[in-house]
């Protein structure tokens, strides 16, 4: 409840929450709301010249180049984008947490080695790496999610590492250790709970970047493959006709809380 009140006091956060809810509803209720099948190429979906139908009339947002209903495609596209956002980001945060905690807890040469590797990954041009991976592997929804996760875990690892380093030095860990607690107990019962807020913040913040990255990959034609709709490949396919995009503002609330 406290969180809700806090959010309501900030208009930006409220707005963010509203956008998230809207997308969530659109994604979950896609089969209910969508007036047409997203993959069906409608007989009357194109003008006589074969151009897409403009918005209005039977098709609320018009049709795309193949005569498919744009509204339906966008609703189903929300699903794809959201699945990728959640899966990719979930994996990224998990890897980041694991590497960060282990390196921060072990310290010594093993921890050092892990963090040097993280530094190395930071020097990598992330977008380029994602494009190379996505293009050379056969693209599919899951591959795209994996690729994004592989690129995005680095920042999480860095932050978790710093926090763990700080936690390990604290007195309660020392106390726990002198009571004879094992590594597993210390890690999972005493350090991990302290990292939950960080994980949540990154988990939600990261969804936005993930969705953006997915859209970028799909836009380049190496993300989610047609006929599966995603917000990125919808734009990619209708580039020449260009529909204005109402989903620009997609940034979760926690960033402003």
């Amino acid at each position, binding site marked *: 409840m406290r969180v809700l009140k806090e959010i309501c006091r900030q208009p930006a956060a409220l707005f963010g929450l509203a956008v998230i809810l809207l997308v969530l509803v659109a994604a979950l209720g896609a089969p209910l709301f969508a007036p047409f099948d997203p993959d069906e190429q409608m007989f009357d979906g194109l003008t006589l010249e074969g151009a897409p139908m403009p918005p209005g009339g039977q098709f609320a947002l018009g049709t795309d180049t193949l005569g498919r209903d744009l509204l339906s495609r966008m609703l189903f596209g929300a699903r794809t984008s959201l699945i990728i956002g959640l899966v990719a980001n979930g994996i990224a945060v998990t890897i980041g947490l694991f590497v960060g905690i282990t390196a921060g807890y072990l310290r010594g040469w093993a921890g050092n080695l892990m963090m040097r590797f993280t530094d190395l990954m930071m020097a990598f*041009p992330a977008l*380029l790496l994602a*494009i190379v*991976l996505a293009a*050379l*592997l056969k693209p599919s929804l899951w591959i795209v999610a994996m690729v994004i996760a592989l690129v995005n875990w680095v920042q999480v690892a860095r932050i978790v590492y710093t926090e763990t380093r700080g936690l390990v030095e604290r007195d309660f860990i020392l106390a726990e250790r002198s009571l004879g607690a094992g590594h597993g107990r210390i890690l999972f019962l005493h350090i991990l709970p302290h990292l939950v807020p960080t994980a949540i913040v990154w988990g939600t913040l990261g969804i936005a970047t993930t969705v953006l990255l997915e859209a*970028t990959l799909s*836009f380049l034609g190496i993300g989610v493959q047609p006929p599966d709709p995603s917000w990125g490949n919808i734009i990619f396919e209708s580039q020449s006709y260009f529909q204005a995009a109402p989903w*620009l503002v997609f940034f979760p609330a926690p960033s402003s809380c």
Partner: protein
Amino acid sequence: MLSLLVKRLIQSVLILFGVAAVTFVLLYALPADPARMLAGRSATAQTVANIRHELGLDQPLTVQFVHYVGGLVQGDLGRSYTQKTEVATLIAARLPATLTLMAAGILLEVLFGVVLGSIAALNRGGVIDRTVMMSAFIGVSAPQFVVALLLLYVFAATLGWFPMSGYGTAAHVVLPAVTLGLLGAGWYARMVRSAMIDVLNQDYVRTARAKGLSGARVILRHVLPNAVLPIIAMIGIDIGQFMGGVVVVEAVYGWPGIGQLAWQAIQQVDIPIIMGVTLTSALAIIAGNLFADLVAPVIDPRIRSN
């Protein structure tokens, strides 16, 4: 200071070496086969094997890597599979275009960001502040390609003020640079705003005001210089980001830069070029961070003394 520089340089070389190793392993572990790609669809197994031998791809991975690094330390990035040219030459030919775009983009985002961020900070809490921060919010969360297409549609296709795509004249730079500038400006505006609000609350600003200095003079001489540090850090990061991250903008605007080179190479599985571009980008990222770390003490004496 000097020992720090040397230490950082050695670190940088090691990181670069690491990036080369990881990319190398990654590229060869992927299922794409450059020899088959080059040979074409109807090639016999013999032809593919010949090409593979010719490119040295039939040797063990370690041998190939040692060979590659051997060339690398001599400044040799290898030869492109498809274009039969030195990769270094290809990259050098594309570099001016990307650097132009990078410079123009960074200039614009700093300009937009500093102006908007300052205005927001000076009107803190007001309608102007909220409007600016809301726009910054949109700028930060909008996908690059959407903004690029939007600008293209309005200013090139509809109004016809700027050319659709290409490279060469000053008019060609405007739209791609504005795309990068608009998107980046959001980050800068947020940062400048918070840095300036910080500085505005300092005692020395009150003193400057109390001395009777004009508002503009206080802002320009006392507030801005003290708020500039995070901007330098951001520019450092952007130098790296833009080198490897302008693939999309270059693709939309047909800008013949490094990103486009990489994009073509990726589609043809031209591994030497992919390696070369990745290394160039990594070098830019490292150089950008180094730049930020080295410039900071020069402009801020507080850091120097530590």
